């Protein structure tokens, strides 16, 4: 069963243009804080992406209530696997749902347009960004909108693989001592690069790292990025010190005879989406 982590609810008043966006900013802040807690074990770049997605959708939903409705609320529930948001209002409702989802179609007032809203992109935007979108409306009564942003959807959508299997498939030679727990970690993508600063800035957290480098700094970078396995290519031999530090941080260092290009190609085929 899914665990609820956080529930946030804010009332939104129609025509209250001064406070438009305040609720979204508050929710955004709380989500960031909640996702930063170690229990959730979220990776930095991914959590930023889902908070960004939710933020945009919530802002659009909030704007819709302020522009069109009399009164409503937005509610956000953070589960372990997804962020679910509901925007419900008492208001005029939507006469033609298909028309409302058409980009550029808007019934916003002059005042809303003056403030930069009412481009007729709102609902379409939410539909585009969210992973699940549900909208019902009774004309003359109100609107109920539900959308979800999924936490695991920001990956490549490929195959997830345990490190144990990855080592088997690529025929890697493991150089560090490891525990069963290390082998049970799951990887779903990889990053090939020899420049440490690039890995620091560009690589996803918890990725597989393929490199020809084998000095001790590699382990430092891998620790920061929470990389569970480093694949050293072209049979380079890391120093004893490097291996020791890797073991200390429960990082596996594995070696292969192949070049970075070849091992990347093999791993790509293993991890890519199967049709």
């Amino acid at each position, binding site marked *: 069963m899914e665990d609820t982590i956080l529930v946030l609810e804010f009332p939104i008043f129609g025509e209250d*243009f*001064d406070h*438009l*966006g*305040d609720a*979204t*900013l508050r929710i*955004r802040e709380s989500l960031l804080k909640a996702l930063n807690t170690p229990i959730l074990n979220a990776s930095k*770049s991914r959590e*930023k*992406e889902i908070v*960004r*997605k939710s*933020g*945009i959708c919530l*802002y*659009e939903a909030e*704007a819709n209530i302020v522009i069109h409705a009399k009164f409503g609320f937005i509610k956000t529930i953070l589960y372990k696997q997804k962020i679910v948001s509901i925007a419900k209002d008492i208001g005029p409702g939507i006469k033609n749902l298909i028309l409302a989802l058409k*980009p550029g179609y808007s019934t916003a007032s002059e005042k809303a347009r003056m*403030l*930069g*809203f*009412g*481009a*007729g*992109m*709102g609902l*379409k*935007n939410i539909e*585009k*960004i969210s992973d699940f979108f549900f909208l019902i409306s009774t004309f003359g009564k109100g609107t109920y909108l539900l959308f979800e942003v999924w936490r695991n959807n920001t990956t490549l959508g490929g195959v997830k693989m345990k490190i144990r299997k990855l080592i088997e498939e690529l025929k890697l030679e493991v150089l560090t001592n490891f525990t069963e727990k290390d082998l049970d970690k799951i990887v779903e993508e990889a990053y090939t690069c020899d420049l440490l600063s690039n890995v620091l800035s560009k690589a996803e957290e918890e990725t597989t790292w393929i490199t020809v480098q084998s000095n001790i700094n590699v382990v430092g970078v891998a620790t920061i990025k929470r990389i569970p396995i480093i694949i050293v290519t072209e049979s380079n031999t890391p120093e004893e010190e490097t291996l020791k530090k890797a073991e200390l941080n429960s990082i596996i260092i594995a070696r292969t005879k192949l070049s970075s290009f070849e091992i990347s190609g093999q791993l790509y085929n293993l991890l890519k989406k199967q049709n």
Partner: protein
Amino acid sequence: MKVVEIIKIVDAVVLQEEGNWDVNIKYGFAADLLSDTLFVISREEEPVLLITGVTNPSVVKTAKILDIPVVLIARGKPIEASTIELAKKENIILLRTKYIVFVTCGLLYEAGLKGAPWKIQY
């Protein structure tokens, strides 16, 4: 492109200076309709500069939600005090130029700022 360079190119005034001055701006986007901004820049991007004529606090809120570090107000428009206050709180740099949006964009484009990637299917 650093924020200081942008200021030099469009002869801008700094209205609110709290924020990240080291950020390397790669793309520009100009719009007065905030929903359009939300629609186009809704993916994770490199830092974007928002050029707009909107001066109410909504513009700061939009920038915050989209992780836009710098907002450039065009046409030398007077700006509401509440907007500056909010920008200060949310750490978003506010600039103002006397040029109209078209000229602002032209100058920045010439200087090497690219348009925000436009990958949209309606």
